[in-house]
């Protein structure tokens, strides 16, 4: 995997965000973290990442709102988006996929699986 791949991820649970950052950076990705959905679209426009990882349930601005913004902007709509959501909110996954998300991961999740899915998505592009 090339070291130049950049991932923007939005996750409000601080420790989980730290762990994901640790795991993904170890795999050679550049990580840009947002603690909520606020500023993510602007971040994507600015950094043009290779992938966006979005937690659905976040304060102030949720993941689905961000996803809608990303997919409605033609200059960034092609960037794959992976959703992270709690098992109990499975219904949001369908909505997310309808809105154009590439994949989803349900919490509780195995970080190894998440890394593999991200690698696969990036490999297929």
């Amino acid at each position, binding site marked *: 995997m090339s070291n130049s791949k950049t991932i923007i991820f939005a996750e409000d649970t601080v420790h989980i965000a730290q762990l994901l950052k640790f795991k993904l950076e170890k795999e050679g990705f550049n990580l840009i973290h947002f603690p909520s959905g606020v500023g993510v679209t602007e971040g994507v426009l600015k950094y043009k990442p290779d992938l966006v990882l979005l937690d659905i349930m976040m304060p102030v601005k949720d993941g689905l709102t961000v996803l809608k913004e990303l997919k409605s902007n033609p200059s960034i709509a092609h960037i794959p988006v992976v959703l992270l959501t709690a098992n109990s909110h499975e219904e949001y996954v369908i909505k997310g996929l309808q809105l154009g998300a590439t994949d989803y991961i349900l919490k509780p*999740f195995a970080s*190894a699986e998440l890394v593999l899915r991200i690698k696969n998505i990036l490999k297929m592009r």
Partner: protein
Amino acid sequence: MFIHLDIFTFLALTIFALLIITYILVIQVVLLRLLHGYQAKQEQKFIAVWEGKIFNYLESDEKPVTLVKKIRRGKYFYLLRYLREFLLMLKGDDFKKLSALINETKLQRFLLSQLKSGSPKKINEAAYFLGLAKSVASRSVLQKKLRSQNASVFLSSALALARLNDIDSVFDIFRNARRFKFVSKDSLLAILSEYSNEICKPLLLNLKKEKNTLIQSITITLFRHFKFYQAGETVLKIIVYSQNKDVIIESIKFFCTIEFVKSATALRTLINHPKAEVRAEVLKALAVLGDETFEQRIWDRMYDPEYEVQYNAVTTLIKLIPGSEEKISNFAYGNLKDRAAAIARMVLSERNIKN
């Protein structure tokens, strides 16, 4: 004059005493805030030091005992609170390694001693973390705690046993829950839904002989939560004779979730149930489980005395019967003074806005 002086003295003394009390309270609040701030800082320092160590431990072959032995007893709860989110949100190897920090170290001994203490606060904290870490060693103590007279101890022990997926305790949880008036159906459901779907088989066996309507209702809600299709036939038998509104409504929702088409016959009768909530739920379910043979019955419900039933009748007709939207539109705008037509107009406007 003499009396006036006394009153003034009394007032002065009272004000002085109140000032002293206020002063003590303010000092106490300030001290508590300082203490809380100090503890928060200590916890942040602890995390700053230990986060990297824990992440490295996840990637290495380091034994959990080696890592935890470096932590002093006074800081156990810093580690436990730090692990909390991970234990809730991770599975697989990460979960195994992180839960081993509790289950295979002196932390487990510490928590078990807290669990055996007489303090409900300590018991609740210990039960919470032992449950999160799925500590099998705590099972027998937790089972005993289900018989506690303290409701919070009962609830925290039940939750821990559910997280441990201790199927043997399910009926003990039901039995003991009845002792507490304020242990609600929702709190029991929240606890029992922490079990895996393995809970469904024993619940199904029990449902066949269960007479308590609260347990029936909770059981059927859990079947819905786990999408336990095998319970369809048994629940269908219950809905036919049940007089309990909750049991009927939960059964209908369950049929809808598992798309149990066989239940349509029962719904045909229940569409005229005396309770409006049941009629409204039947109509909602018919959008999934019904067919065109229900059309006239659903039209009839548009004249139901209850608003929610009328509303559901219109939405179900639109979803269920192809081309019905035009028919409803003609009805809605051709009968301007009719109440059912007014509701139909409202549903149609809502659909237009959504589209």
